[in-house]
């Protein structure tokens, strides 16, 4: 009896989380007439079509957009890691700034997006950075860096300081310690942080929408363009969204076993 209740509850939960995503894929293979249908039966019974994908590939710059998204999210993730790894190490090992600096770092993530958007828009305009991959990459660096520091701070705190002291007694230099001791231990934490930054950058919309027009336009902006003046083109939109999730899905799949550890910010010693 208890088992049945458990599986019923599990089924309801799974249904709630998975069904809307299933609906994205279902909508992507529906003909326009079926999407806009007022009948209940056509919601599930319809003849599938690939028209939406054809529309997406032929009538919109889908491949250019997904390339932009890939360039910007990968580049920004690499930059974020280059900045955040040493900083988080410094916070965790040397207590740099006695917590105040860490607080400032984290609080920058709380600034409403528009606070940075107004000044940057005009600065980028005069520097010629609007609608460039470089400009968007820099914005995502700012967008993700504090969260990455926060995550990595937790991971670095889990590495015992005694390990380093022992290595120092053995005559290791600072860089050798970083390379031979810290880096192998932080790799899982760094991977999960990188996946988070990647997914956030991949799906980011507001900055992309404000700071790009044509050349550097990423996929999220492309998807928003399906909201036309008269109607929303749900079909091609779903096709685009369904394809856009696949890379993030792959990234998450590889990181699956680190995710649970990664989400606890060192508050959990597991």
């Amino acid at each position, binding site marked *: 009896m208890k088992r049945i209740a458990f599986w019923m509850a*599990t089924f309801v939960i*799974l249904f709630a*989380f*998975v069904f*809307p995503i299933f*609906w994205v894929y279902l909508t992507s293979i529906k003909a326009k007439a079926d999407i*806009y249908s*007022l009948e*209940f039966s056509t919601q599930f019974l319809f003849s599938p079509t690939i028209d939406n994908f054809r529309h997406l590939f032929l009538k919109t710059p889908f491949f250019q957009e997904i390339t932009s998204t890939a360039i910007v999210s990968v580049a920004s993730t690499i930059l974020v890691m280059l*900045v*955040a790894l*040493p*900083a988080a190490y*410094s916070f965790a090992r040397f207590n*740099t700034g006695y917590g105040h600096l860490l*607080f400032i*770092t*984290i*609080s*920058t993530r*709380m*600034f*409403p*997006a*528009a*606070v*940075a958007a*107004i000044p940057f828009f*005009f*600065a980028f305009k005069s520097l010629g950075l609007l609608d460039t991959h470089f400009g968007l990459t820099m914005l995502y*660096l*700012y967008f993700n*860096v504090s969260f990455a*520091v926060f995550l990595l701070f937790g991971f670095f705190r889990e590495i015992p300081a005694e390990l380093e002291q022992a290595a120092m007694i053995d005559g290791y230099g600072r*860089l050798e310690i970083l390379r031979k001791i810290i880096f192998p231990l932080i790799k899982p934490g760094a991977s999960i942080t990188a996946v988070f930054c990647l*997914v956030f950058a991949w*799906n980011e*919309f*507001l900055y992309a929408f404000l700071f790009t027009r044509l050349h550097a336009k990423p996929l*999220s902006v492309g*998807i*928003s363009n*399906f909201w036309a003046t008269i109607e929303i083109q749900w079909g091609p*939109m*779903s096709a*685009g*969204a369904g394809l*856009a*999730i696949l890379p*993030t*899905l792959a990234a998450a*799949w590889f990181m*699956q076993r680190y*995710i*649970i550890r990664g*989400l*606890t*910010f060192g*508050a*959990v010693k597991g």
Partner: protein
Amino acid sequence: MIGSGNEARVETLATGFLERKTFWETLTSEKYFKWVLITPLLIVLLVFTLYPMCYCLFYSTHQYAMPRPPKFIGFDNYRAVLQDVNFWQALGRSFYLLVISIAVELIVAMGIAMLFNREFKGQNIIRGLCLLPLLISPLAMSMIWDYIFHYDMGLMNHVLAKIGFSKVNWWTPEVALYTIAVISIWQWTPFSIFVLLAGLRSLPRDAFEAAKVDGATPWYTFRRITLPMLMPIIMIIILLRTMWLIRLFDPLYGTTRGGVGTETFDWMVYRVAFVFFDVGAGSTLAIISLFLTLVLCALLFRVLMKSLGAAE
């Protein structure tokens, strides 16, 4: 005597010269290394937060609606904003959305985490599936929700009609804010579930066994043992979710675009600055939101650090 003294001095000078470190050694020395490591971050933060702050502070004291040139007007912008009824409504909505979203997410996620906190068949795949909403683009998803909640064509109303209820208009001023909340709750509850689940799994077993021996009810065990021990985790969730909810934009863009009584604070800043191109008023709103979020963040951060300290 004098000679030997000089010799000693020469000697110290010489060793001092020999001991003078190379630039590289100075960088990796005990004193400077931690600052060297943190320099890139400081540069990024300086460029990307100090500049916008100064810019907004400056133009918040100016009347500056593009394309007219800016004109200094002192604190008139602040006065105008604080007297604007839209501002208070948007602020109220943001806060309301924040409270109900986090409350619902935490309660639902706690229930699910407790349910999944055991060994069962297919546990990895089932937990993995629950993570899906986190990965999909919030903007694309909100457009799909717009479809699902559509009055005539949406699945929700089709199903409601089928099982004998009357259709609901999900986008009226009374309901729309809750619809938005549902969208954001759906997307972010998995995050809370996973953090809580990780927390639950790390709790020491003996406390629960002792409670069992003493014959404590499950509710009592939960309230007196589980909940207090999970407090740091819950605080982390609240802190991060507050950070994310304050800049809630995508679900609004994909659905109501700030219409039908859903204009939140962040949306108002966007509208004033990027639709009306009123940089002066936009900067003023930005500075006010900066102040509010800083206060909120300081509060949450202090509680978090306290509970982290208590947990150790």
